Structure formats: structure tokens, C-alpha cells
């Protein structure tokens, strides 16, 4: 039975018009049509990843509800592939289904105030007593923390070994009383992210992903997937920020100048090249795990979003001097291309910081892709607790 037959069977048994949304999503998951490249029993069929597009299109055409993927992006894009790769059978069974249906929202507790680009220097401690870890520390830049049921968390479990070797990876219960979530207002005016204070938070050892001390490797899977999620989506031509600016350009001939025209043509070309690059990368990877090349797409995406959103404000002239709303809100969804030009301009500044700064991504490309030598490092082999900070 090919995937489209399975879609038809699902629709025959669960008419979207009459089935409860959540029931339909659960049934879709159980039919292996959630993410077809996942294994059978975990929402998939072990089918080629490319077939997912067929499934999605067919279901959308039939009026089936989707799982509102933007609302649960961190779960889908980062937690799920990590759980799939490193999770125990129990963990996969427990977490993946409600993650995919959206019943449980996930967030990510990685960055810390003192560990930004140098993420591996993180200082949040996790100490094991019996079969329970107790976690203390502070995390930052956590989107969805105030709506999340679970978090993926990295914490230091051994300060006596070099920094990359003393980290472990956990699933953290965000309803634990030791979790304190505070909104963090950003330059757009809204508080899309949070600071998360962890005080005596308890995590059963059964919620550890991967071996003790190997959390850094586990986190690489998360980060590589994050970068692909940020920069690597399939796009039609003029998808994303370039489409926004091109539409304004077409609708507002009175705003055009030769200077802006040349910049727009350059950015349009860059955007098309980035789109083709992503398309080629997807054709290459097709079924594999994303590697460091994902960093390339995120880098290109950030550069384009910033150039184009800056151009848009200039193109708008007097209108570019306005802003839609500075009110502090805590949005559940974030659309980089949403709201007005001023918001897009400011929000795009984060694209080269969140999920790995562009500087860190260039280091990764230079070292892992081009094989250029690392810089002299003084901290690499030093026990974490002895590194000067």
C-alpha cells in the first residue's frame, strides 16, 4: 500500500468533517502519516522523507486539520529528531505522539547569560541522587517557555572534566515548581522569549537522553536540526522576505529608484540562489541527518532577511519612519515576515544570533566543512571548573 492509499484509508475511517481535531491528528499519527520517514509505530512508515509532501498536500486538499506546526516548531524541529535518535523506546513512545499532535508543547533550555556563542561553557548544574537529578541554574532566550509542557535541557553533570565532556541532556518537566519563567522583552517591543530560572528542579534519570557526559553530542543533533529548521525550509520562488519586498515594489511604482532597483535585483538573485541551494541540499540529504551544511542555509537566510528588511524600510521612505506597535505582548507564534516593515527589520536582527550566531556558524563551516585548523585553544582540555571566566 503506498502512502496515498494510506491517506485515503485514514480519510475513509476518519472523515475530517465529522471527526474531532485531536482525534483526527492522533489517528493520523497512528496511521504513520505524521512524519512518514519516522519508524512505524512512532508516527511514520520508514518511507522516504520526500513522500511527506505528497501526504500533506493530499490531506490539506481533503480539508483535514493540521497540527499547527508553527505553534510547536521546537518540538517538531528540534526535540523530535533528537528523541528519535537518542531516546529509549519508552521515551519515544511517551513523548513523540503528544509532541506531534500538539497536545504537549516543547521548549529548549540551552543558552545561558554566560554561555552564548560558547554554549559548551554552560554552568547550569545537574546533580544525581538516587535516580533523580536536581537542576539549578539560569537559562535564557527560551521561546514558548510559558506555554511548554516539556523542555529539552542541557546541564553540567561533571565540572571536573573539560567542558564538552561534562554535559548531559535531559527532558525537563516545565510544570516542576522549581521552574520560574519570566518574559524577556526584546527590541521589537514584544517578549517572544523568556528567561527561565531553575531552582531545585527534579528530573528522573529516566528522562535523560543519551549517556551521562555525552550531552554535547546529543545537542549537536538538536542544533543541526534547528539550523535546518530556521534556514532550510522548502520555499517557492519569492518565498519569505523577498516576496514581501517584491510585492511592495510591484504595487508602489512611485517608490522606485534606480539605487533601490539595483539592490532589489541583487537581493532577489541572492534569494533565488539561496532557494536553489536549499533545494539542492534537500535533494542531497533526502533521507540523511542534517550535517554542518545546515549552517550554510541559516547563514544565508539571516543575511537575506536582514538585507531585504533593511531595504524595505528604505523603500517605504516616510512610511518606514513609522512603527506599528511597541506594546509588550507575549506572542505564541512568531512570523518573521509578519506585521509591518519596522517590525520585520528589527526582528531580522535576531536571525543572525538565535540558533547559533552567524560568527559561530562561519567557524563551523570553516572547521567542519573546509577542514581549516582550529584556533589555538586554552580551554579545550582544561577541566570546566578551572577555566577562567
Amino acid at each position, binding site marked *: 500500500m503506498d502512502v496515498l492509499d494510506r491517506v485515503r484509508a485514514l480519510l475513509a475511517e476518519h472523515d475530517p468533517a465529522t471527526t474531532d481535531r485531536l482525534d483526527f491528528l492522533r489517528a493520523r499519527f497512528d496511521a504513520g502519516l505524521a512524519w512518514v520517514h519516522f519508524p512505524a509505530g512512532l508516527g511514520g512508515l520508514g518511507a522516504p522523507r520526500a513522500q511527506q509532501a505528497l501526504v500533506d498536500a493530499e490531506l490539506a486538499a481533503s480539508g483535514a486539520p493540521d497540527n499547527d506546526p508553527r505553534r510547536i516548531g521546537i518540538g517538531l524541529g528540534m526535540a523530535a529528531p533528537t528523541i528519535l535518535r537518542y531516546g529509549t523506546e519508552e521515551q519515544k513512545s511517551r513523548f513523540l505522539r503528544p509532541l506531534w499532535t500538539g497536545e504537549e508543547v516543547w521548549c529548549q533550555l540551552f543558552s545561558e547569560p554566560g554561555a552564548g556563542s*560558547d554554549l559548551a561553557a554552560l554552568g547550569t548544574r545537574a546533580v544525581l541522587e538516587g535516580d533523580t537529578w536536581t537542576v539549578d541554574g539560569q537559562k535564557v532566550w527560551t521561546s514558548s517557555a510559558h506555554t511548554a509542557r516539556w523542555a529539552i535541557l542541557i546541564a553540567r553533570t561533571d565540572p571536573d572534566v573539560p567542558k564538552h565532556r561534562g554535559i548531559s541532556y535531559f527532558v525537563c518537566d516545565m510544570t516542576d515548581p522549581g521552574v520560574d519563567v519570566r518574559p524577556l522583552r526584546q527590541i521589537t517591543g514584544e517578549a517572544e522569549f523568556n528567561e527561565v530560572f531553575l531552582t531545585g528542579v527534579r528530573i528522573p534519570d529516566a528522562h535523560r537522553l543519551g549517556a551521562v557526559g555525552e550531552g554535547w553530542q546529543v545537542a549537536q543533533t538538536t542544533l543541526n536540526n534547528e539550523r535546518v529548521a530556521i534556514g532550510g525550509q522548502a520555499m517557492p520562488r519569492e518565498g519569505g522576505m523577498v516576496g514581501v519586498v517584491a510585492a511592495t515594489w510591484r504595487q508602489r511604482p512611485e517608490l522606485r529608484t534606480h*539605487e533601490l532597483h539595483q539592490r532589489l535585483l541583487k537581493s532577489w538573485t541572492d534569494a533565488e540562489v539561496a532557494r536553489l541551494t536549499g533545494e539542492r541540499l534537500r535533494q542531497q540529504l533526502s533521507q540523511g541527518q542534517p550535517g554542518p551544511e545546515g549552517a550554510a542555509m541559516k547563514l544565508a537566510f539571516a543575511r537575506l532577511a536582514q538585507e531585504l528588511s533593511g531595504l524595505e524600510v528604505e523603500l517605504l521612505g516616510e512610511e518606514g519612519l513609522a512603527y506599528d506597535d511597541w506594546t509588550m505582548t507575549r506572542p505564541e507564534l512568531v512570523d518573521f515576515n509578519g506585521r509591518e516593515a519596522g517590525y520585520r527589520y528589527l526582528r531580522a536582527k535576531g536571525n543572525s544570533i538565535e540558533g547559533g550566531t552567524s560568527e559561530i556558524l562561519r567557524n563551523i563551516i570553516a572547521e567542519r566543512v573546509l577542514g581549516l585548523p582550529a584556533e589555538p585553544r586554552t580551554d579545550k582540555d582544561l577541566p570546566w571548573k578551572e577555566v577562567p571566566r
Partner: protein
Amino acid sequence: MSTAGPDLLYSEIEEELRSSVRALLAAHCPPGAVLARCESAEPYDLALWRALAADLGAAGLQVPEEYGGAGAGLRETAVVLEELGRSAAPVPFLGSAVLATTVLLACGAVELLPSVAAGTTTAALAVPLSTAPGGAFPGGVRAAADGTLTGRVTSVADASAAGLLLVPAVGADGPGLYAVESTAARIVRRTSLDLTRPLSDVTLEAAPARRLAGPETAPAALDRALLTGAGLLASEQLGIAEWCLATTVAYLKERRQFARPLGSFQALKHRLADLWLDTVGARAAARYAADALAGGSPDAAVAVAVAQAHCGALAVRAAEECVQLHGGIGMTWEHPAHLYLKRAKADQLALGTPGRHRNALAALVGLPGPVE
């Protein structure tokens, strides 16, 4: 020593003025205070503005002493703008002491000058802040035969702090410049990208007005104000860039990652070296524009276009690098970097974008575009 050519340095008097302004700004508007001010109901720091005007005479620097000014000039005015840029100060200096004052001087409206020079009256020029020099005379406000004005001007800088509006309007005999009491206008503050220089929409409905200049003077007076504003804005942009560069350098010396100061990483060092180089260039270009405007040089239009083309883009780049190189902290509302980013981006649109100023050079220096 040099026998010819522009003076691109700062005189001792200018350096003294800078010190005074900087001390005043340090007292009134450290970054945290600016942010709190911008979020309040009164986004202008009017106490600071009064102190600038009364204690330092900054509002009347370009006004001759006989009309109550300091009798200094545009070079000194530019020094004040550098400092205002460096502190992202929320005062109506550009609108009142630069744009409006230049109009009053160009119109010979000497009876209005003393109070504006003293800062007891704050004035604003009723054009959209994005208006570039060299354009057509604005036609959005009509002057009626009875001397009243009717029309609407959007995105006017510093209008909400002004008691006096200078309004370009077109009457039966052509363009004119008019003085309108702000109480006779409806002034509605917009939500502006730049939190430190609020814009307003000004609506006039048969507002009583006094004509300052008629068709023979008004277009040139308005253009002189826009050119002067654009040229001196380059000094504000220089100040923004300098703050961003200095703040970033200081942060990168301090912030350690990978057991090293971030500032020891060569890729960042090279970017900052390039930024420094272009900031040094901005200082030269902004000084040249101020000097050329101050001296009435025939090269002033070129000097202004070069300064705006360079400084407008540089301030934005410096502010963007400041946010980027501060990492996450630079994205927060509580860090002042965003105040500079927003002011730099708004300044880039103000009085002509860098692209428009570069295009102006095509005609000014004889580098015409393609024959269509």
C-alpha cells in the same frame, strides 16, 4: 598652518562646547534614562532641552548675537549634534535649532529668532522628516486669501514639542512659508520607529498664519533648511556611529567566551577595524559638510551629499554591528543598543536616503546616468 582648503578639525572653542554638552548629557540622559523617557507620556526631555538652550545657548548657535543667538555657526551646531547622536538624546534640537532656525534666518524673520534662539519657543518645520533637499515645493497645505492655512503634513519631526510651526504652503501667488502657532493646529503623535525623535501628523483647518516668505524667497529658504539639516544630520550620524563602535569595543574587551575576551577574535577585530576606518571617514565627511555649509562654500551641495551618503549608511551599519556583536543582550529592550539602531535607521531615511544623496551627486559632479 594650512593655507587653503577646508578646516576639518575642531577648534578649541568647539572642543569646549563639546565638553559642556557632553557633561550636560551625561547628567541628564544616561541610556537608562533615555529609555524610561521614551516610554513615558512625554518622550521629550524638556528639562534637558531647556538646559541646553538656556545654559549652553545651543538652540541659538547659528543665530547672530543681534537676534539673541550665540553668533557661532553651523560648525558648532554640528558639534552639538554629534553629542546628541552619541547619547540618542530626546530633544527637539534638529527640528528647532537646525531646520526651523535655518528657515527663519533664510526668510529674515528676525522678530521670531530671539525666542527660538533662547529655546523659550521651540519651533518645528512642517515637512515630513523624510523630505530630501532639492525636491519640489510641498503642495499639501493651501494658503487661503484670508491668510489661513488648510492641509495636512505627516511625519513631522519635533512637532509635538513645538510651540511654533513653520509651514510651507501654496497660495494663489505660489509657494510661501508661514508661521503658525501650534495651538492653531491639530498635532497627533505617531508611533515612530525612532523612539527618541517622535514624529507627528499636523493638520491645519483654516489655521491663522503669518507669511514669512513669498514665492521669491520661500523655495530657496526651504531648500537651504533641508540642505543644512541633511548636512548637519551627518554629524548626528557620526555621533551614533561613534557610540556604537566605542560601546561594542568596550563590550568585546570585557565579555569572555571560550576563555578569551571576545575582542581577541580576529574576525571581530577585522570587522571593527573596517568600521573604525569608515567612522574616521565619517568624521572627515561630516566636518567637511559642516564647514562648507558654515562658510557658504559653492561646494556645499557636494559636501552634504557625500556626507549623507556615507554617514547615513555608516550609522546604520555601526548600530547593526553593535546589536550583532552584543549577541543576545543586544536584542533586549533593556540594553540601549536598540535606541541607537532605531535612531540610525530613521536618520537614514531623514532628509534623503543615502541612495538619493548619491544620485544627487550624479548631477552635481557630472557623472550622469545612462542615456535612456
